[in-house]
């Protein structure tokens, strides 16, 4: 097989940068297999890459410190990449999910190298323009998109049959929509509304926010205004600030605080008094969100009591402990010998509804220590989580992982590509884990949304099942014959053996958890569905 040096270099670089196509990869593999000289060139290429990376890092340090430094010996514990990456993304979260999404790609990367992953980068340059901030009794036309609360919204058509939603545009404008309504998102600062009632709040930084209607365009110069397209004669009401109204064949009109205008062609000269009463739906949203949250919380409490009484539930953490508690009570009626979970790091926060407690995991040290004695030929894991992000620098994020890599250990985790993995350690020396991996669950669109996850392991039927929001996602045949034995385990993190002296891979989960159960039975589809309701 003949190949030019240039072509070979292209293949080498593609492999190193992660941009190589499957076809080229096959070709590269064949070339490497065929020739010892090509393999030698590959080794030299990799050493050259090591040198370039090390030089770049030294240069960066030298520039930061402003002085020449001696090249330090390589030190595995000094790799700044792993922890740094995780912590940086937390900053994005503190600023809110919408901001986090836009700035994802703008963050300065830490010094240490990371494999290029074009797929992940393409996702990172999100095309979203807004986020669905809140909603009550939402009913979407399901032939179009039907976003959930906290979902990022891409340009496109949304039809709300009923209910009230609040859309936050990335440019800063907030639009409250009462169904039935149809709205087309155009950009981070523009939408087209065909029908429905809308109430907009446009802060100064979103000046110029534009709403198109069949009767003309509205350009907001920093205000609060209402738009009613349901009446036979559509109306625009300005509550505060200034709005430009552009209509065909009519001079632009400026509306100011307290004024309103009809949008009909023949009514375009009408000027009315702004009537806030017609748009109370937006001010009622707070109260309605609270009320619907309270109802859901009540339903959860009732279902929770039934679930705790299930004789097979060994560990149930409902995260309803006293404020500031440093342990999580095991509220399972039959949890007898299983102790409370111990919180290490991690802060209390609000869960799915007001009044629902939850733990926030953000740093590499945050975790809940558990002890689950016993062997389980069947078990089910269930958790409500809000995942805030996945670092491409970290291959796994722990949901619940046994300590170390001991035979029978269970490793329930989110992989870096957003798929779920249940690993059962088949042998500790040499370390072999039977991994069951689901299709991708956590795309960027799901970050920040409450998601119910369950995994079922059953040696009787020799099946492993994954569930997302109560729906079965995938089934896998059990590979080995080791009986799972979770023993010491952690939620949201992983520890090698406690006396391990070296550095170890970071596995921390970045997000919130407000419900966790371990059940010594292979739950059926309908049982998992109930837990996800």
């Amino acid at each position, binding site marked *: 097989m003949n190949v030019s040096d240039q072509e070979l270099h292209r293949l080498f670089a593609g492999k190193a*940068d992660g941009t190589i196509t499957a076809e080229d990869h096959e070709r590269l593999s064949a070339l490497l297999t065929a020739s010892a000289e090509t393999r030698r060139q590959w080794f030299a290429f990799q050493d050259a890459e090591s040198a*370039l990376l090390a030089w770049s890092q030294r240069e960066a340090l030298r520039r930061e410190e402003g002085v020449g430094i001696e090249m330090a010996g390589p030190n*595995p514990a000094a790799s700044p990449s792993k922890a740094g990456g995780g912590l940086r993304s937390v900053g994005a979260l503190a600023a809110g999910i919408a901001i986090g999404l836009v700035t994802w790609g703008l963050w300065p990367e830490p010094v240490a190298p990371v494999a290029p992953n074009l797929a992940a980068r393409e996702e990172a340059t999100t095309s979203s323009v807004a986020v669905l901030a809140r909603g009550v009794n939402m009913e979407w036309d399901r032939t179009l998109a039907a976003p959930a609360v906290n979902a990022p919204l891409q340009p496109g058509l949304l039809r709300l049959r009923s209910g009230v939603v609040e859309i936050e545009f990335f440019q800063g404008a907030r639009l409250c929509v009462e169904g039935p309504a149809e709205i087309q998102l155009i950009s981070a600062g523009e939408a087209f509304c065909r029908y429905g009632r809308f109430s907009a709040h446009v802060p100064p930084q979103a000046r110029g926010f534009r709403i198109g209607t069949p009767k003309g365009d509205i350009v907001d110069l920093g205000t609060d205004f209402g738009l009613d397209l349901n009446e036979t004669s559509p109306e625009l009401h300005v509550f505060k600030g200034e709005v430009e109204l552009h209509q065909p064949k009519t001079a632009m009109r400026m509306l100011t605080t307290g004024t309103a205008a009809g949008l009909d062609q023949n009514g375009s000269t009408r000027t009315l008094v702004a009537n806030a009463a017609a748009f109370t739906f937006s001010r009622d949203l707070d109260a309605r969100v609270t009320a619907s949250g309270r109802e859901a919380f009540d339903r959860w409490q009732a279902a929770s009591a039934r679930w705790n009484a299930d004789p097979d539930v060994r560990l149930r953490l409902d995260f309803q402990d006293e404020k500031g508690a440093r342990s999580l009570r095991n509220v399972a009626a039959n949890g007898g010998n299983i102790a409370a979970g111990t919180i290490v790091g991690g802060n209390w926060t609000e869960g799915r509804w007001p009044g629902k407690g939850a733990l926030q995991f953000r740093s590499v040290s945050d975790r809940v220590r558990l002890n689950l004695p016993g062997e389980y030929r069947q078990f089910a894991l269930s958790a409500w989580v809000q995942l805030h992000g996945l670092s491409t620098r970290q291959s796994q994020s722990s949901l619940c992982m046994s300590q170390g890599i001991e035979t029978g250990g269970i490793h329930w985790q989110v992989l870096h590509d957003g798929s779920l993995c249940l690993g059962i350690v088949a042998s500790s020396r040499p370390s072999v884990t039977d991994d069951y991996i689901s299709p991708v669950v956590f795309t960027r669109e799901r970050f920040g949304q409450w998601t119910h996850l369950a995994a079922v392991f059953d040696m009787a039927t020799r099946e492993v099942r994954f569930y997302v929001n109560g729906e079965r996602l995938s089934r896998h045949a059990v590979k080995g014959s080791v009986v799972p034995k979770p023993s010491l385990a952690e939620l949201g993190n992983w520890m090698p053996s406690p006396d391990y002296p070296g550095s170890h891979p970071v596995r921390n989960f970045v997000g919130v958890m407000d419900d966790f159960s371990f059940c010594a039975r292979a739950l059926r589809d309908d049982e998992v569905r109930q837990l996800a309701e």
Partner: protein
Amino acid sequence: MPDPAEPSPASEQFITLLNASHGRLLGFLRVMLGNSADAEDVLQRASMTIWRKFAEYDPSRDFFAWASSFAFYEAKNFQRTAARSRLHFDDELMHRLADERVADLDHRDARLAAMDRCIEELDESGRELVREFYLNNTDVAALAERLGRAPQTLYNKLNTLRRMLGECMKRRLAQEAGI
């Protein structure tokens, strides 16, 4: 748990040996996995196994030779579950690369030293491009946006630089071998 303030002699010895072999182990893993991030990740995982087996280590043996077998196993395991790309070398090629790389690593230090001098020969704009590329995790798209240049043009330019540097390294090594 031992007091972290007073590391046991075994853990001290382990860390010393691991540190001394760190570069070679990374170099060993890189040729099988193709990139440094995966290699670092695998080395961290392998370090755990190596530590657990450390009691069985015979100090009269070469530490790298002993540890690299665990690293090799870990690399294969890693590719199945956690590698950043789904494209992997097959088992046969992995074995061959591992076998040959052990002896090849004797050239590693000379290559690194040669490359360091080649980088200094680049003009400032070339050096800056190289630095930005590697510091930004070889993310050409983001770099292109920041510099206001087309990604493909930038990537071509970078690859030309990498190739030139690679040839410079080869030339220097040949010269040294000739002396």
